[in-house]
């Protein structure tokens, strides 16, 4: 479904990604793990077009992502839940969700999608007329995921969904991810919480200093010594 | 450095000698205008270069011109006293508006809009007091009886005016240099970069900004008063209001904001431009000069934000360095 081939990317003169090869097949959940500053967020941004790769190719179901204007990438079926959620704090939950359905294709299915999101997160229905900035951390994460789902995506990019949340809420968030998977979406998730994320994904990549160091199924990854020592603390 | 001083000395001597050698009254007239406006533009740039973009200077200039003329006509007060009073008035106005702005960190857009409104209001006051100021029809200082020209600061002789304007212009450059070299400049630079850091480093941000504003307003009022004394006619549109404020900004940007002679270059370009347009269009010139001004202002900001002199100097400075960087 999504395929990255030898992608280089960075900010100005600073290069954050070096020759990334990565693919996500339809229906899969794939994780990208690694330490702070490894380039995980950059990887997400380069896929959704927030930054453009210096080299390499990115394709989504055969469409050239690099050649697509940033604001049309969502039309290819890629929805990005950015780091720190990035809701519109002074818009209501309803309006935030509406923004997720901004593309003409999504507008037509607005009512249907809204029902889907409210089914998934009944809490959002209760809070729909509340300003997004006043929601709790967990609710904000729901709202952010809900906003991404409004565009009826095929691939959901989740950037650190557990960051800055209380441990109990982190559990809930990973529950959410499971539910989203169950609804048939393909998910690419970036996480520092390696233990949790390996439980929900089928495969994972280890990203360190901008390059992919290892990859494999979650079981394989969990057994890898380096990951055990560095990330699982076993 | 010495050769630089020498160059300034020679240049100045040549400028002083000029009216004694070359007496074409029209050209002298243009030079006087250029010098007076250069002084006003220099006054503006003293503030502008630190990011204090004021569009209120038309207001200060109007106060300088009108207060001086009104005191002379109504109270018979000599401009020698009237000009200082008008400067104090403009300074007071500047402080009243600037103090709350700086105290409460009204910067950027807000500062521009507040000062812009100030220009507009001064223009409104001049128009509203039409019984005294003649309103939009303009105002003429009374002619002094012959022999009293010195007291009334009225001279028919272009050479005298040229020398006065030249002295004031040099004064303006000296003030520019003084601000440029004084501590307060470093303080101001710190302020325009990062106000909080400057405040943390013990710089009294508000006081420094007020000082610069006051100097700038006093100079601008002086320029307005001199313009009035020289032209012997003022109208709200020529010495006050938003258009005059914008004209100052335009000239300084065209000339170059960060070099001492930038405002002078701006004055030369804008006044020559206005004169050329006036001569080539004749009476139809009304509006055309400002149309070209406006177009050039927009084009300059988009393509040459450092101004003509600034860009030229930049190029001169960077060219010898280029081999080093490669």
């Amino acid at each position: 479904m999504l395929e990255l081939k030898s992608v280089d990317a960075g900010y100005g003169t600073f290069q954050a990604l070096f020759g990334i090869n990565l693919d996500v097949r339809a229906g899969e959940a794939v994780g990208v793990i690694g330490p702070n500053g490894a380039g995980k967020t950059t990887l997400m941004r380069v896929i959704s077009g927030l930054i453009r790769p210096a080299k390499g190719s990115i394709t989504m179901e055969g469409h050239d992502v690099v050649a697509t204007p940033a604001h049309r990438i969502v039309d290819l079926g890629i929805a990005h839940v950015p780091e720190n959620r990035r809701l519109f704090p002074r818009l209501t939950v309803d309006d935030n969700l509406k923004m997720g359905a901004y593309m003409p294709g999504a507008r037509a299915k607005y009512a249907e999608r809204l029902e889907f999101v409210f089914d998934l997160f009944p809490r959002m229905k209760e809070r729909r007329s509340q300003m997004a900035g006043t929601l709790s951390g967990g609710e904000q994460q729901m709202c952010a995921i809900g906003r991404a789902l409004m565009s009826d995506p095929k691939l959901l990019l989740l950037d650190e969904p557990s960051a800055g949340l209380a441990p109990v809420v982190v559990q809930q968030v990973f529950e959410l991810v499971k539910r989203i998977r169950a609804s048939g979406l393909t998910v690419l998730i970036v996480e520092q919480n390696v233990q949790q994320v390996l439980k929900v994904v089928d495969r994972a990549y280890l990203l360190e200093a901008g390059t992919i160091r290892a990859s494999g199924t979650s079981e394989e990854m969990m057994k890898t010594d380096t990951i055990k020592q560095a990330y699982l603390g076993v | 450095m010495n050769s630089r001083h020498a160059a300034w000395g020679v240049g100045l001597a040549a400028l002083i000698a000029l009216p004694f050698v070359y007496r074409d009254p029209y050209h002298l007239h243009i030079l006087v205008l250029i010098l007076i406006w250069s002084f006003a533009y220099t006054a503006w740039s003293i503030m502008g270069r630190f990011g204090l973009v004021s569009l209120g200077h038309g207001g200060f200039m109007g106060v300088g011109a009108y207060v001086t003329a009104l005191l002379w006509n109504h109270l018979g007060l000599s401009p020698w006293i009237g000009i200082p009073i008008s400067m104090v008035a403009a300074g007071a106005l500047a402080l009243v508006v600037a103090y709350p702005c700086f105290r409460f960190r009204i910067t950027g857009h807000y500062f521009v809009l507040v000062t812009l409104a100030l220009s507009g209001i001064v223009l409104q006051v001049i128009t509203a007091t039409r019984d005294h100021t003649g309103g939009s029809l303009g105002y003429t200082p009374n002619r002094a009886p012959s022999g009293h020209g010195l007291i009334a600061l009225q001279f028919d002789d272009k050479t005298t005016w040229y020398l006065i304007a030249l002295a004031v212009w040099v004064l303006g450059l000296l003030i520019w240099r003084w601000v440029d070299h004084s501590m307060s400049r470093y303080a101001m630079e710190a302020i325009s970069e990062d106000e909080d850091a400057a405040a943390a480093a013990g710089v009294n941000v508000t006081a420094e900004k007020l000082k610069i504003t006051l100097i700038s307003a006093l100079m601008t009022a002086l320029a307005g008063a001199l313009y009035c004394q020289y032209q012997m006619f003022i109208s709200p549109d020529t010495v006050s209001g938003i258009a005059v404020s914008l004209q100052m900004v335009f000239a300084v940007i065209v000339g170059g904001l960060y070099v001492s002679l930038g405002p002078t270059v701006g004055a030369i370009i804008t006044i020559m431009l206005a004169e050329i347009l006036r001569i080539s269009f004749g009476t139809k010139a009304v509006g055309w000069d400002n149309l070209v001004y406006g177009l050039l202002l927009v084009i300059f900001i988009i393509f040459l934000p450092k101004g003509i002199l600034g860009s030229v100097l930049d190029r001169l400075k960077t060219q010898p360095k280029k081999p080093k960087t490669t």
Partner: protein
Amino acid sequence: MQAFLDIFDIYLLEAVVNGILLGGVLALLALGLNLIFGVIDVTWICYAELVMIGMYGMYYMVQAFGLPYWVAAPIAILLVAGLGALLHYLVIEPLLTAPPINQLLATGGVLFILQSFATVAFGIDFRNLGIRLPVLAIGDMHFSYSRLLAFVAALIGMLAVYFFMTRTYTGTAIRAISQDRQIMSLMGVDTKRIYLITSALGGALAGLAACLLVLQYDVHPFVGLSFGPITFLICVLGGLGNFVGGFIAAFVFAEIISLGGLFADLEWGYVLAFAFFIVMMFIRPAGLLARRS
């Protein structure tokens, strides 16, 4: 003495009502400026000059081409909306990454261009539509229909903007964009397009104001100077980008101008408004309705 007070009260009441009527149009202008500032982070110094061009548009359509007012008005609104979009496209867009002050000064250059264009093209004579609307008499008070019409139309215009902003996708995007500019593309929003639409909308509001003001005031190239500065003060006092603050400040200023004009000339009303503004800056420096965050 009693008779004097009676008359005085009636004039006072009339001035208060006229102030409210004036406030409507000022609020419309403040809304346009705030909208553009809120979305694009730029202030159009030449905003009142767009109104002036709109007023000339109305004058020529009605006087020279003999169009009825109701036909000319929508054309004038579209004309100024187009002008707003053009201003953004030609001047602001190339400067989007430049320091904000440069954008501001560039619109100052446009002010020069529009004023002198009007001088060159239309001359400096005062012109009016020649439409005289009747005066409404309530008791001893007199209100001109042109002001009532202006007030009602301004309110309708603002209401239309409100519905556009809350009910449509584009309107929601306009509200969202100032809260997080970078992620707009993730929503599939083309920020450049939103900027252009906002500029056109801001222009349309200036056009509407032009249609209303041309019924009350003569048009000349410098007419913008009589309400431009006051609009800026309103926006600063209400907080740039703050729609509600601008709305309230517009009526406060309109009352000051109207009541000030009762005692002296209208110009003194402006001076009074400015003095009030300075005092308010000492009392509430962050604006009338500062957003506490």
